[in-house]
C-alpha cells in the first residue's frame, strides 16, 4: 500500500504526460503481483466496490472530531476524503500496513456491518498520504489525471511492448492480470483472447496539409463525409457484444440501446456514434448528453437515440479482414449489414468524384453542422493500427473564427509554470447599464509559438489589473483571432455558449479591443 500511496500522491501533483508515464513505469517494474494488478485496475477504472464508503467514512470520524473543527477544516480543505485523511486521529506505526491485494480481497467479501471496523483498522495503520490514497480507492474516482489509456501505455512501455498489443487482449483478461504481467515480464506467451470481443486498435487519419493533394492520384482514393460524432468500435461474437471508444474504453453500459439493436452481431466494425432522430443526425451537443453516464434512463434512450454509421469492418465473424484493401473490406461490411438489417445502423456513403477540385467545392459547400469535412482513404491500404502516414487523411472544413479580447491569464504547468499560457477571452455585449462589457466565451492554451508565448507572457505581466491566486486579470487591450469547430449552447457559462476546440489562430496585436466581436455574432453560429 505504501508504494501505491506514493504513486497516487506523485501522480496527483504531476502534470506532464512523460513524467506520469515514468512514475507509473517505475511502479509496475518494481511492484510484485498481485498488487500491481490491483493498482492497474484502479488506474483503469476496473475496481468495482459496492459498499457506501463515503457515508461510512463520515460515520467513523464523527466520534473523534469536534463538529466545529471538522466544519472549519472541511471548508478550508475543500474535499471530504482529504479532510478525513488529515483529521484521522490515530497513526499506529506498529500496526502492519495492509497490502493493496489484501485490501482488495477483504473488500470483495466484506459485509456492511464489518466495513466500519475494517476500514478504521486500515486507516490507523497508514500515514496521511496512505489514508488519502485508501479513501480515494474505496470511495471511487481517483481523479489524479491518469486515463485508462495512459496507464496501459505505461505498462506496455515499462516492459518494451507496444500499447496496441496490450489493447488487443485487454478486454479478455481479468484482475489481477497475472497472465498479462507474466507475458510482459517475458515469462509466458501473450494471453490468448479466444473469441472474446476484445478491442482492436483503430486506424487514425492525418490532417490533410497544404500541398498533399497535389501528390495524390484521385483514382487511388475514396472519400466519405467526416461525421461529427464519436469514433466507436462495435465488437461481438454472436453472444457477447461490446461497444468501445477509440481509446479502448468499454462504453457498452452507457448504450443499452446499441446492445439491443445489434444482438447477434458477429465481427468487429468501425464507425461513428451519433444521435439520430427520424433519419436526421442531431447536433453533437445531443450526443454529449449520452456520454460518460454510469446509468442510463429509459427517457434518455428515447430522447437521445443512439445510432452507428459504419465505415469499416475489421473482422467478419471470426475472419480477420485487416490485411485486405478498402474495397474488399467494404464489400464485407455491406454484406454484413444487408444480411442482418440492424436497426440503429447505417452505412457511411462513399462519395463519387473525378478530381480533387470537385471535392474542394463539395467540402466548402457543406454547411451541415454534423459534417466536419471529408475523409480521404487510400483504396489499396490495409487496416492498420495507429496513425500510419499516407493512408487516411481528414480534410476538415475551415474552422470558424471570431475576434475575442483577452480577459484572464493563468500560469501553465510543467515547462510552462513560469508562463502565463492559458487564456480566457471574451466577446462584447451590452450590459445592464447600457455600456459595453466583456463576457468570457472560451479558454485556450495552444496555437502560438514559443516566441509568441514569451511576448504574451510579458503582455500579461505588464497589464495585470488584479490577481486571484495563479490567475491574473488583464486590461482588455489584446485581441485574439480564435479558431473553433463549433459553438454550442451552454447553461454552465455566463455567456450561454461554449466553443468546441477553441485555439488561438492569430494574435492581433494591431487590432483595437473595441473592434472585437460581439456576443450576438457568436450566437448566430450556434449549431442548430
Amino acid at each position, binding site marked *: 500500500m505504501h508504494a501505491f500511496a506514493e504513486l497516487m500522491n506523485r501522480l496527483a501533483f504531476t502534470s506532464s504526460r512523460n513524467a506520469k508515464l*515514468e512514475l507509473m513505469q517505475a511502479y509496475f517494474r518494481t511492484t510484485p503481483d498481485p498488487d500491481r494488478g490491483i493498482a492497474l485496475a484502479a488506474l483503469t477504472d476496473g475496481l468495482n466496490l459496492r459498499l457506501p464508503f463515503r457515508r461510512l467514512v463520515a460515520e467513523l470520524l464523527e466520534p473523534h472530531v469536534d463538529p466545529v473543527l471538522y466544519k472549519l*477544516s472541511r471548508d478550508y480543505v475543500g474535499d471530504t476524503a482529504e479532510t478525513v485523511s488529515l483529521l484521522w486521529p490515530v497513526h499506529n506505526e506498529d500496526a502492519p500496513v495492509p497490502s493493496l491485494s489484501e485490501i482488495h480481497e477483504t473488500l470483495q467479501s466484506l459485509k456492511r456491518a464489518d466495513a466500519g471496523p475494517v476500514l478504521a483498522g486500515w486507516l490507523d495503520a497508514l500515514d496521511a498520504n496512505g489514508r488519502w490514497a485508501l479513501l480515494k480507492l474505496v470511495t471511487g474516482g481517483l481523479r489524479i489525471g491518469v486515463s485508462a489509456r495512459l496507464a496501459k501505455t505505461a505498462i506496455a512501455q515499462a516492459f518494451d511492448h507496444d500499447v496496441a498489443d496490450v489493447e488487443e487482449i485487454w478486454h479478455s483478461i481479468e484482475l489481477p492480470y497475472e497472465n498479462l504481467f507474466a507475458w510482459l515480464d517475458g515469462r509466458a506467451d501473450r494471453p490468448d483472447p479466444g473469441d472474446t470481443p476484445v478491442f482492436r486498435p483503430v486506424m487514425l487519419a492525418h490532417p490533410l496539409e497544404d500541398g498533399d493533394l497535389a501528390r495524390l492520384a484521385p483514382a487511388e482514393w475514396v472519400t466519405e463525409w467526416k461525421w461529427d460524432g464519436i469514433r466507436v468500435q462495435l465488437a461481438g461474437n454472436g453472444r457477447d457484444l461490446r461497444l468501445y471508444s477509440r481509446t479502448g474504453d468499454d462504453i457498452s453500459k452507457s448504450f443499452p440501446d446499441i446492445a439491443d439493436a445489434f444482438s447477434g452481431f458477429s465481427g468487429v466494425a468501425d464507425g461513428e456514434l451519433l444521435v439520430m432522430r427520424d433519419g436526421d443526425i442531431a447536433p453533437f451537443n445531443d450526443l454529449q448528453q449520452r456520454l460518460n453516464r454510469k446509468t442510463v434512463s429509459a427517457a434518455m434512450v428515447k430522447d437521445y437515440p443512439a445510432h452507428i454509421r459504419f465505415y469499416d469492418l475489421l473482422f467478419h465473424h471470426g475472419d480477420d479482414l485487416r490485411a485486405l484493401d478498402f474495397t474488399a473490406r467494404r464489400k464485407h461490411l455491406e454484406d454484413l449489414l444487408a444480411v442482418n438489417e440492424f436497426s440503429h445502423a447505417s452505412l457511411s456513403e462513399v462519395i463519387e468524384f473525378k478530381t480533387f477540385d470537385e471535392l474542394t467545392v463539395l467540402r466548402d459547400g457543406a454547411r451541415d453542422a454534423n459534417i466536419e469535412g471529408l475523409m480521404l482513404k487510400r483504396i489499396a491500404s490495409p487496416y492498420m493500427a495507429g496513425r500510419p502516414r499516407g493512408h487516411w487523411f481528414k480534410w476538415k472544413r475551415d474552422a470558424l473564427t471570431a475576434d475575442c479580447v483577452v480577459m484572464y491569464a493563468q500560469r501553465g504547468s510543467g515547462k510552462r*509554470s513560469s508562463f502565463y499560457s492559458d487564456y480566457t477571452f471574451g466577446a462584447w455585449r451590452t450590459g445592464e447599464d447600457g455600456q459595453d462589457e466583456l463576457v468570457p466565451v472560451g479558454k485556450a492554451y495552444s496555437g502560438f509559438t514559443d516566441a509568441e508565448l514569451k511576448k504574451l507572457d510579458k503582455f500579461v505581466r505588464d497589464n495585470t489589473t488584479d490577481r486571484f491566486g495563479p490567475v491574473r486579470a488583464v486590461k482588455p487591450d489584446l485581441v485574439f483571432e480564435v479558431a473553433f469547430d463549433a459553438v454550442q449552447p451552454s447553461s454552465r457559462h455566463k455567456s450561454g455558449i461554449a466553443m468546441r476546440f477553441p485555439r488561438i489562430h492569430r494574435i492581433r496585436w494591431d487590432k483595437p479591443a473595441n473592434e472585437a466581436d460581439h456576443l450576438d455574432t457568436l450566437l448566430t453560429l450556434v449549431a442548430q
Partner: protein
Amino acid sequence: MTLDPATWLYPTPKGLYCEPGDFYIDPARPVGRAVITHGHADHARPGNTAVMATRQTLDIMQVRYGERAGENLQAIDYGETISINGVDVGMAPAGHILGAAQVILDWQGYRAVVSGDYKRATDPTCTGFQVVKCDLFITEATFGLPVFVHENAATEAARLVASLDASPQRTHLLGVYGLGKCQRMICLVRAAGYDKPIYLHGALQGLCAYYTTQGVELGELRPVADEPPEALQGQLVLCPPSAIADRWSRRMNDPLTAFASGWMRVRARARQRGAEFPIIVSDHADWPELLQTITDVEAGEIWVTHGREDALLHQISSMGLKGRALALVGFEDEGE
C-alpha cells in the same frame, strides 16, 4: 487580584505595545524602542531607533538591512534578563529559526510570554523551543486548524533525495523561504545523505553564508548565476518560492518544482502554488504542537495572533482556558 494584562500590554496600529516599559514587540512601523523576536521580515522591520534582540537576530537584521537595522542595537542572550523602565525583559529559545526567541515580560509579579513564531520539532539549525510557564501566553496560529499536522522533516527530506536519485534527468527546483527554511532543508538533505553541491538563487546566498559563520554546516553551495541548463540537470537548486513562478526559473530545463512548507499539507494549496513535489516541512508549530504548548505553559490566559484564530480559540475554550484574538497588523502567513 491580578491585574488584567490588557491594561499594560495591548495592540496598537504600530504593533504590540508594552506601556510601562514603553516599547513595542515586533512593531509594524518604526518606533523608538523595539524588542524583536526573530529576523523574518514581517517581525523584524527596519528603521527603529533602539532595538533589543538576540545577537543572531541582530546579525540577521544587519545582513538584510545594513545600517537601517537600527541606530542602537542591544544584544540579549537566551536566559538573560534586562530591565526596561521597570519591566524585566527576558529571552527563551523559540525553536523557529536561528536566533528566534520568545520574549518574557515580568511586571508586578505577572508574567507574559510573547512567543513570536515557534515550533517544537527538532531543527539542526537552531536552539530548541523552551517551555516557559507564565500567566499569559501569546501564541501564533499560522497552522491553527487540526488538518495541519506536519510530516517528519527527516522523512520528507529523504523523499526528496530519493527523487533526485530516481529522476536524474530533472533539475529539482525547491522553493524555500530564504531565512530558516532554506538552511534547514539543506541540513536535512545533507543528513539524508545528499553530498553533491547544492545550487542557490542569488537571494539565498547571503543568509546561507551567515549561517555557516554560526557553525551551521551546509556543505558545498554554488550560485546558480549563469550556469547553463545542462549543468543543472539532476541537481538540487534552491530559490525563494516566488522565483519558481518568475522568469528566473526559465533557465532550468523542465524542472521538477518542489516547495517546502506547512501549506503543502493541503492539496488545493499545493496545486495553487504549482508544486509538483510538495514537501510538508514547516518552521511553525502544527496543530498538535500548538495544543501541547498551550497545555505546557500552564497560562490562565491565551492570546492568539496571526493565523486561523477561529479554530484555535474554539479549542482553547473547550480546554477551559480564557482565549482572546489579538488583531495585530502586518503579519503574513503566506511566505512560510
